């Protein structure tokens, strides 16, 4: 079977190479039939990659330990679910997943984005082929998932912290995001190569960009939730290089999603948009490189592997190549209009872009600082949490505020009087909230009060937009409130989907602020019968319970929680001892308070031989809004992504002339 997998990968590699070389030739010489065959090669490579994937999945399911990959990442006791998710538990499998997702995206994008025009599409195919060739090359020659060995009796097992339901969903989501950014990149490069620098490539890839960005966002939230419930230190984001690796392209893509609207509406910022898409794609490659190369010390880096130099070379090639191309096409990227006023929708988009890019680049600086400092001073040094928090506050809080201001400012030129009117209610709401917060004693954290006041301002501004729109639509013609509201959203999916996403970011900000700025932490060593107090709740330790599971022993501390005289329930923080892997993992216990959105987070820091426990208890107010934000985010993204017949017709009319020309 391994031979079949290898053969499928070689086939995929050759087809992608053909899509690259043949496709380039076809686009350059304008050969239509060659271009079609290059496109077909792209389709074929997807089929071949599916075969390779099936072979690896089959080997995992059969516990075929003659596959080195299977032996290294699973064991016989491992439940079937985790055995299958071990597909992306190691490097070779992860690369195969990259290639699978990439070729899937390539096929879907090439088949659905024909509106972009034949000349551009002819160059998109070899660009996608180039990226695919690189990953197929790694899989065939450097890190093959189909390396074989004499079959061993049992495998090494899967890292216990990967034995979690999130393992099934978090990495694939991130990959769908990382890899999805290839699509807008390929179309941007296609447009530049074909000298078609109008906004058609943006329109054709809008949904793909949005989908990739949404997947990346969801993937990160899932990772944060995984860290929160499983890794057991009480947080959800640690500014670890590998976490930052996913955040940076997401920030760049967020900037891109905003700035393309200016190009669509006003024909400005063409160079900036192309640079952003290069930045986003470059950062997604850099993210994969960070995760996989082990060049920077991270709690996530599982390996010091051989693919690092390959990746670095490819990133340099992509960056240098695309920047050269942008430079060569500069005359074609002139703006049609210019910014008319510093107080306009365009200008707020511009500020938002600068802040997002500044945040992404300062994070990038923090991530590469260890390497730079070693090169410059010969001594490795790292930057830590205060550095990142400082820049998150400096750039993130104004960004939060802009989310409320932007939608209320008119395009082109806004009059100050009109602004005053639109801002009246949100400002009043924010002011009242600020005073109420200070009165309630939230002044213990200045950043917290600022963040919450801004949040109220933005939420009020968004609510106002929905109310105004609904009222206007109702006035138009005899609709009821509900019908007017749904017709408002259906007719402007992108706009109102965007507002819903904004609301989710505000919820996220509220949750993060509550969990960080207003957190209470208490630690204590308790013997059975002893108790401790955290933020008003009394925790009584009752002793330990131990149970034998198929591949581990589960030890749990029994903790009864009381508020006043009221018994709130028994919570069981503890540890699992895994046999095959010879490892311990922390199993936290969390009490969600659905009414207030806060969590009581219990960690069995140390299990002592004399029967006592070192218990760490964290009270995290409002932290559950962070997870609620995830659902709202998905909802908003879906609204914006949903196919829109009206928009399709509008676009078809707009490009009707252009389609005749090609």
């Amino acid at each position, binding site marked *: 079977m391994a031979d079949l997998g290898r053969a499928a990968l070689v086939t995929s590699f050759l087809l992608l190479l053909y899509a690259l070389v043949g496709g380039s030739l076809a686009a350059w010489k304008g050969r239509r039939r060659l271009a079609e065959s290059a496109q077909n090669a792209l389709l074929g490579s997807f089929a071949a990659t599916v075969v390779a994937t099936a072979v690896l999945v089959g080997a995992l399911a059969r516990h075929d330990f003659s596959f080195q990959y299977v032996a290294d990442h699973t064991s016989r006791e491992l439940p079937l679910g985790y055995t299958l998710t071990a597909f992306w538990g190691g490097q070779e499998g992860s690369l195969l997943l990259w290639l699978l997702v990439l070729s899937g995206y390539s096929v879907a994008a090439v088949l659905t984005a024909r509106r972009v025009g034949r000349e551009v599409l002819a160059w998109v195919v070899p660009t996608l082929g180039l990226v695919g060739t690189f990953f197929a090359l790694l899989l065939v020659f450097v890190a093959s998932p189909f390396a074989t060995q004499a079959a061993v009796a049992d495998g090494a097992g899967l890292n216990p912290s990967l034995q979690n339901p999130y393992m099934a969903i978090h990495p694939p989501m991130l990959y769908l995001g990382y890899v999805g950014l290839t699509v807008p990149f390929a179309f941007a490069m296609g447009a530049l190569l074909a000298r078609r620098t109008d906004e058609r490539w943006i329109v054709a890839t809008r949904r793909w960009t949005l989908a990739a960005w949404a997947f990346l966002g969801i993937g990160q939230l899932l990772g944060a939730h995984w860290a929160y419930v499983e890794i057991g230190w009480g947080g959800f984001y640690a500014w670890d290089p590998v976490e930052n690796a996913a955040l940076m392209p997401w920030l760049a893509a967020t900037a891109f999603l905003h700035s393309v609207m200016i190009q669509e509406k006003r024909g400005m910022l063409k160079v900036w948009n192309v640079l952003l898409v290069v930045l986003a794609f470059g950062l997604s490659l850099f993210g994969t490189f960070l995760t996989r190369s082990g060049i920077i010390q991270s*709690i996530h880096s599982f390996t010091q592997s051989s693919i690092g130099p390959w990746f670095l070379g490819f990133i340099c090639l992509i960056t240098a190549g695309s920047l050269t191309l942008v430079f060569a096409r500069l005359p074609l990227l002139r703006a049609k209009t210019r910014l008319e006023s510093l107080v306009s929708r365009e200008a707020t988009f511009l500020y938002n872009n600068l802040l997002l890019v500044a945040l992404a680049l300062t994070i990038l600086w923090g991530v590469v600082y260890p390497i730079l400092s070693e090169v410059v001073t010969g001594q490795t040094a*790292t930057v*830590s949490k205060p550095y990142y928090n400082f820049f998150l506050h400096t750039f993130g809080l104004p960004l939060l505020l802009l989310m409320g201001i932007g939608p209320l400012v008119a395009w082109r030129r806004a009059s100050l009087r009109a602004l005053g009117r639109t801002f009246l209610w949100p400002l009043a709401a924010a002011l009242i909230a600020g005073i109420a917060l200070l009165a309630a004693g939230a002044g213990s954290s200045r950043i917290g009060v600022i963040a919450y006041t801004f949040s109220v301002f933005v939420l009020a501004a968004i609510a106002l937009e929905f109310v105004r729109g609904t009222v206007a639509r109702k006035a138009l013609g005899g609709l009821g409130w509900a019908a007017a509201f749904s017709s408002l959203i259906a007719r402007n999916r992108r706009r109102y989907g965007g507002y819903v996403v904004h609301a989710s970011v505000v919820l996220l900000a509220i949750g993060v602020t509550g969990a960080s700025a207003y957190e209470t932490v208490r630690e204590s060593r308790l013997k059975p019968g002893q108790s401790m107090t955290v933020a008003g709740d009394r925790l009584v330790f009752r002793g330990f319970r131990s149970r034998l599971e198929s591949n581990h022993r589960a030890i749990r501390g029994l903790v009864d929680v009381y508020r006043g005289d009221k018994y709130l329930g028994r919570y069981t923080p503890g540890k699992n001892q895994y046999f095959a*892997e010879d490892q311990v993992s922390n199993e936290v216990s969390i009490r969600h308070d659905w009414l207030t959105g806060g969590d009581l987070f219990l960690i069995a820091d140390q299990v002592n031989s004399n029967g006592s426990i070192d218990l760490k208890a964290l009270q995290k107010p409002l932290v559950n809004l962070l997870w609620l934000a995830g659902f709202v985010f998905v909802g908003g993204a879906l609204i914006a992504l949903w196919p829109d017949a009206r928009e399709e017709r509008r676009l078809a009319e707009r490009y009707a002339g252009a389609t005749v020309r090609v």
Partner: protein
Amino acid sequence: MPGKRSPVRLIVALSVAAVLAVFLLYTSIAGGGTPVLRPSQLAGHHGRVSLMGQVVGTKSGDAHADGLRFQLRDVKGTTTVPVVYKGSVPDLFKTGRDVVVDGRLRNGVFVAVPNTLVTKCPSKYQPKR
């Protein structure tokens, strides 16, 4: 609009300048990063550093009482330094593992900052070939 420059350039230039100013201000106040050292490089450093090394020998003491005591050795070398640490001990911490911990050297003993111990993932899951 002859003679009138686009405000885009002004915004971009001012913003870039503002970002750089904030950045420089931060780095000048907070200083650079924390140096990451091996046990053999510790001598002479008395400020806060990150120490990276391999856990060797036996560990003793209690991380939640008077402190956990263990030795760190250069990952590729022989110099060792005793470490005393208080706070949460990661699940993966044990003899033979590579760890990073913040702290400062006092009288030949590396006194760790509480709750800064981080283990690097074991290489077992990705055998070296």
